[in-house]
Structure formats: C-alpha cells, structure tokens
C-alpha cells in the first residue's frame, strides 16, 4: 500500500527533476498569486485580471522578437505592456466618457491582437503555444529564480500596503478623507497583478495564469467570510491544485497547466455543491429547532 502511495504521489517528484521544478514554481506562484486573487475578487475585478493577462502578450512577444525565448526579456516586455494597458485604461476612464471596464476591454483587445500578430508573423505556432499555454514542465533555474523573486517582491509589497488596500476596497470615499494614498495603492495593486501574471505566464501561459489567481479566491469565498482565512484557504487550494494537476499530468500524460486549472475548477464545483448542501442542512436544522420551540 505504501509502495503504491509512494509511486502515485512521491516518485514523480523524487525521480524527475522537471516535476519537482514544476512543483516548486507553481507553489511559489500560489503564495503570491492567491492573495492577489482574493483582493481582485473582493474588488469585483476578476475580469480585470483576465483582461490584464491578455494585455501582457505583446510585451512578451516583443521580448521574444528581440531575444528569442529569453525569460528576462519576455518578463520585462510583459511588465511594461501590462503597466501601459493598466495606466492607459485608467487614464482614459478618468478623462473621457468611457467606463473603466470598457476602456480596459478596448486596450487589452488591442494589446492581444498586436501580440498575436507579432508572434504569428515572426515566430512559429510552437512559440505561440508556449506563450499562450506556458511550459510548466520545462521550468529551468533561470525561470525558477525569476518566479521566486517576483513572488517574494509581490508578497512583501502586499503585506506593506495591506491595511491601506483593505480600506481602499471597503470605503474608498472615506479613505480619501484620511489619506492621499488611495490612488497610489490602487496602482501598486494593479502593478502586483501584472507582476504575478507575468510570473504566471512562464509556468501556466498567459491564458491560464489568471486561473491560479481567481479560482482559489472564488473557492475560498464559499468557505469563509473572514479575510485572513480567505487568503489562507485560497493559498492552500492553489497549492493543492498545483500538486494534483501535476500528478494528473504525469500519470495521464496531460498538458500540465490546463490540468492544474481543471483541478481548481473541480474544487470550485465541489465547493458550490457542498456549500449549497450545508446551507440547506442549516436551514432545515433552524426550522426544526423553531418548530420544537413552538411545540414546547
């Protein structure tokens, strides 16, 4: 029995360094992306995260054109493109009749189109697939170092602005009266979103990286109504899904990044069903105790 468990859960990571590297990269991403995802969902900005994930593509593409599959060039390109789209959409929303969501949608679509155009005209379809769907099982030392650095910076920065970010989320009008840092906190937060998406696209690809942010937060929202617990549950959920997704990918020869996101999707659906059952049970229990009181 122990042998079977060892073969199923430990052997893939102890025997193959590409698997342990993939696990390390994904766990590091979970530490930083899950809390960011919690704030994104609480600010009702889940789709903003998705839009930003697409927006980084042309930057990564330009980095790819300049230096080939160089991790640092693509990262810097992605960060610049993400920041430009975030700033431009915010600027247009503040200085025109456009709402922030529609201006963000316009800029990310433009950005995505430019990115796909660059890659498809100058690279091969394999390159495009690499950028869109990541290469979880091909993370080298350079990539792991980059992911760890970005995750450390992001986690530290989030801890530093945590109190201000909570106030900016709950009551921005009030926060403006006691501090001038509301707008700065908003942009720092967007920068952290971009950083995590850029880190995520190396492992999971631009299309899937946002999944590791939003889905764990969405699952956590079902199970708790306390912010600290939400962040913890989101992190555990993301980590567990990375582990599960990689094992599924190994044992059933599946693509790793969609496998991870599908495990998260499974947890999301299980949460919907279990929380619904729990609510029904507690409703039944409450009505029973009420009828008991009436009989007394």
């Amino acid at each position, binding site marked *: 029995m122990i042998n079977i468990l060892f073969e199923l859960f430990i052997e893939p990571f102890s025997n193959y360094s590409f698997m342990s590297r993939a696990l390390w990269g994904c766990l590091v991403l979970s530490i930083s992306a899950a809390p960011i995802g919690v704030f994104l969902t*609480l600010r009702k900005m889940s789709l903003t995260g998705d839009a930003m994930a697409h927006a980084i593509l042309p930057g990564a593409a330009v980095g790819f054109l300049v230096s080939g599959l160089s991790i640092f060039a693509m990262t810097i390109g992605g960060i610049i493109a993400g920041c430009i789209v975030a700033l431009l959409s915010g600027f247009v929303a503040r200085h025109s009749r456009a709402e922030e969501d529609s201006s963000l949608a316009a800029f990310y679509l433009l950005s995505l189109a430019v990115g796909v155009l660059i890659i498809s005209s100058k690279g091969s379809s394999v390159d495009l697939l690499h950028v869109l769907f990541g290469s979880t099982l091909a993370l080298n030392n350079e990539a792991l170092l980059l992911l760890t650095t970005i995750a450390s910076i992001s986690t530290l920065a989030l801890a*530093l*602005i945590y*109190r*201000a970010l*909570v*106030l900016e*989320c*709950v*009551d921005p*009008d*009030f*926060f*403006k*009266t*006691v*501090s001038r840092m509301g707008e700065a906190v908003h942009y720092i937060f967007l920068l952290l979103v971009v950083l995590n998406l850029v880190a995520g696209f190396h492992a999971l690809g631009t299309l899937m990286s946002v999944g590791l942010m939003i889905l764990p937060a969405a699952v956590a929202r079902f199970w*708790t*109504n*306390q*912010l600290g617990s*939400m962040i913890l549950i989101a992190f555990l959920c993301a980590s567990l899904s990375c582990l599960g997704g990689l094992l599924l990918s190994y044992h059933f020869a599946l693509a790793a990044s969609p496998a991870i996101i599908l495990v998260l999707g499974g947890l999301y659906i299980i949460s919907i069903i279990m929380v619904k059952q729990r609510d029904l049970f507690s409703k039944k229990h409450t009505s029973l105790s009420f009828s008991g009181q009436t009989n007394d």
Partner: protein
Amino acid sequence: MIKISQLTVHYQNIPALENINTEIHQGEMLAVVGANGAGKSTLLKAVMGQLKPAAGCVEFQKYGLKNIAYLPQSQKVDRSFPITVKEFVSAGTWRKTGLWRAFTPLLNKQLSACLSQVGLKNSEHKQIGELSGGQFQRMLFARMLIQDAQILILDEPFNSVDMHTTRDLAAVIQACHAAGKTVIAVIHDMHLVKQYFPEALLLAGRLIAKGPTEQVLTQDNMCKAGFHPAVVNEL
C-alpha cells in the same frame, strides 16, 4: 471657522456650485439642504478638498483638513467585504496608526467606548454584511467618533434608518455639538432639520440662504431652491 469665498465647482465639466460665499463658525451645527442635484454633496467634497474648485477657495482657521471626520453615504460602502465591525471602526484611527503602526490598548479602549456610545457594544465581532441598515449606520457613526476630529461632515446620516435609530444618532450628533465640535450634515428630511439643527444652509447650485433654520426654511426660500410645492406647503 471655515471661510468659503466665491467657490465655484464643476462636476464632470458641468457647474455644480456657483459663487458660494459663506462662513461656518466653530461649534456650529449646520444642516445643508437643497433639492436633488442642488450641489449639497459637492459642497461637502469641496470643503474636504476632494474636489478642486474651478474658482474661489475654502480656507480653514484653527482646525484644518486633518481635523475633519467624514461620514459617507452608507450605500457607497462595500458591505459584502469580509471585515468585522471592530476592524471597520478601527479604520477611523488611520491618522494615528497609518500603514504599519500598532493598534494600542488605549485605541482599543476608545474603540469600545465609541461602539458603546452608538449602541453596538456586543456587535464588534460581527461581519459588516450581517448588520441591519440601522446597525450599519451606527457603525459609521462609531468610526466617525473614534477620529476625535473637531469638524464632523455627514452625508445623509439619517437615510434609510428607522425613527428609533435616528433619535439615537441625532443624540450622538448633539453630544458632539455640545462638546464644541462643528457639525455639517446633508439632510433631506426638513422635519429633522427643524428638530435638530439650529442653523441651515440652503443650496440650489448657488447659495439661497444661510442662517438660523427657521429664517432659512421659509416658503419663499424653498420655492427659490426649486422644491416641490407639496414639500413647501408641508413646512
């Protein structure tokens, strides 16, 4: 004292307030009234420095912007955010605690006192989303009180609350007024204005009148401010 001189404020390129000249004295309890779109909330935001005037200025003597406590409209707060009453009210200590400073036992004591004052003593560990409309408004008052500011600015503090809560919260404002604080509140209900506010400021995009409430809320002034005849006749 707050001196407002030739204040003109544009809101999304449309003039919301034009050429307002008035003074609000320290310790005054002032109701800001006017029909919808009269510029009441715009005036509050201009006083707090959140809207830049297109012309004119707001000057403070003795107490400045850092001595303002603001109570926003309750619907502007995200009630679905997972945060407890205690955490929410403690945000009022931001000027003392900022990003990183610790929440001291003294502040904790003050927080408990503020919650008791508004009747929320036993609700500090509740989530804000679990509160009723009245309890939520009481919590906003507690956050305003813990700021310990000399100027209190309230945007529709009695909106959507029952009579009992209104009476309790009006008593809280009166206690602040009695302690020498300046109270400026946007109020829609003219009966509440007459009942609790000795001074009133009537707006209609421009200043119609300011002074003792009974001299401001006259039928003539109310007609000038564009109120519906039914409201005017009720007075």
